[in-house]
């Protein structure tokens, strides 16, 4: 780096050992690149290994078969249906509450000790290990609220788990909307909610969507909390269908049903000594990892799109 300035008392002093120091500079750039490449390589190796190991099992049957004692006939039907239903419950609970809390903190909350308590709580919850949420759910949802080991209990647990992610992302999105927009709306006589609903929220949609997807991508892979509430790993039936042929056509009976989920199924297969099950684990892992990467990719893309589109 040529700064055009040298130590004025003795120009030679500043140049002392310059070639060696510059070499060290270049070496560090190399080290930095190598370290980053190693990390990215691990990610690549992980994904490729899962796909290669799981490839023989990745067929149509794998998605339409229930778990089985015979590895070559085992599939993930109950697992992916369970995961889908849990994610619906999680999204329906976490998104309105998370976005609501974020709007409150950014647009409504007065600056006082009470707001500070809510904020500290959100930061703290983000640092609580996921398995502790499992213990909370076991004590509260499963036994106190008597939800049992059901899809509803699992969905609520994961909703609490991703709540801080949704709140933090939404707050960031809301905060980036310039004050002038709000003041213009207030100036025309809009109430606080009208300002929020008609101006702040539309501008922060991108950020909120990103936070929602990142939260769900975290929830989809979470294993520990749903093991703790007692998810079963061997289920050979599906929960009650949400769509019924008779009036009222929609049923919520599935909320009460026992379940298994993708990460639970994978964990179950990983922990079996029989190597044939490892292929199943790899196949399930490839699907799980693929889902997570896809969701993260979509989130990055949305963030990028919205950042490009909005020019204040």
């Amino acid at each position: 780096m040529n700064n055009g300035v040298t130590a004025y008392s003795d120009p030679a002093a500043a140049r002392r050992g310059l070639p060696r120091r510059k070499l060290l500079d270049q070496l560090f750039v190399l080290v930095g690149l190598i370290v980053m490449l190693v990390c990215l390589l691990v990610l690549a190796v992980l994904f490729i290994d899962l796909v290669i190991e799981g490839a023989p099992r990745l067929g149509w049957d794998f998605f339409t078969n229930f778990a089985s004692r015979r590895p070559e006939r085992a599939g993930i039907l109950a697992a992916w249906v369970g995961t889908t239903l849990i994610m619906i419950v999680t999204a329906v609970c976490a998104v309105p509450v998370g976005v609501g809390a974020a709007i409150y903190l950014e647009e409504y909350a007065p600056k006082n000790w009470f707001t500070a308590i809510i904020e500290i709580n959100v930061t703290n919850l983000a640092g609580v290990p996921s398995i502790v949420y499992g213990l909370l759910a076991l004590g509260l949802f499963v036994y106190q609220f008597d939800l049992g080991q059901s899809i509803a209990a699992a969905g609520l647990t994961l909703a609490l788990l991703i709540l801080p992610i949704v709140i933090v992302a939404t707050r960031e999105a809301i905060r980036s909307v310039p004050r002038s927009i709000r003041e213009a709306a207030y100036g025309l006589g809009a109430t606080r909610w009208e300002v929020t609903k008609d101006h702040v929220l539309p501008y922060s949609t991108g950020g909120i969507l990103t936070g929602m997807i990142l939260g769900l991508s975290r929830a989809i892979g979470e294993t520990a909390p749903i093991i703790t509430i007692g998810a079963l790993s061997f289920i050979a039936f599906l929960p009650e269908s949400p769509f019924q042929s008779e009036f009222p056509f929609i049923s919520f009976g599935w909320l009460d049903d026992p379940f298994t989920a993708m990460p639970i199924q994978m964990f179950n297969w990983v922990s079996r000594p029989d190597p044939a099950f490892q292929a199943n684990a790899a196949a399930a892992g490839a699907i799980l990892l693929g889902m997570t990467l896809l969701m993260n990719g979509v989130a990055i893309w949305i963030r990028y799109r919205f950042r490009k589109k909005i020019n204040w």
Partner: protein
Amino acid sequence: MSSIPSVAVTSAGALRYRKMRDRVIESLLLVSGLVAVFTTLAIVAVLLIESSAFFEHVSLREFLTGTMWTPLFADARYGILPLVAGTLTTTIVALLVAVPLGTTIAIYLSEFAPHRIRETVKPILELLGAVPTVVYGYFALTMVTPALQWLMPELPGFNMLSAGLVIGLMIVPYVSSVSEDAMRAVPRYMREGSYAMGATRLQTALRVVVPGAFSGLAAAFILGISRAVGETMVVAIAAGMQPNFTFDPREPAATITAYIVQVSLGDLPHGSIGYQSIFAAGLVLLFMTLVFNVIGFSLTRRFREAY
């Protein structure tokens, strides 16, 4: 005055309605905010209530100083130390990976990398932290352990070393992103002062930026520790689930989290002492992470206010 929009001349009744609606919505939003507070209270309450039943059977002294953890055996012993030792050992191994790698990446991204590279690499790195932990567990068990066994033939199939290494990799993006934030918060004029004295970029990074961002780096490491302490699936899959009072990473051992998983996998009746013991273990875990989080967050606040 005819150009005033119609909003301003609506009837008093409509205005009252809009104000009322605002107040209702505000209280709904407040309730959403309070969910976070209730969650924290509920976590603490559930853990305290369930473990108070546990501590009716087990003295606090045995719990904190006993070196045997066998709650599921006929001869049940309830010393948490083996689980704490397992947790600390995997955490230390993880830090030995995450701190050097994470800091190097952070220095590179904050001080050396061109804008384009930084913006491309950061989201990809974050993917490392987004991989489901059960997948990392599979990775540790089926790839890292065999690779380590090739280097150290006497290494058992379950060991804390492989689990710790993988957890370390997992928290690299976490450490690097907090560290990078801290280093970017160091003001430009400090770097320029250093360049003006003839320092190279590396010298500036190591002697001006890193010391300037010290509290932020410390926060990054401590938040990383808190992550590693709470990590569950990798250790449950790759480190074995047998409590083992040792600090040798080459041995199999259970962590606090692995014990909770192990009990949950079985079918312990609600209200039994085995069932209550996971809440006592959870309380210790929560306490450990809480301490690290509080230190970490107070350090991040400091680096954000320092300049």
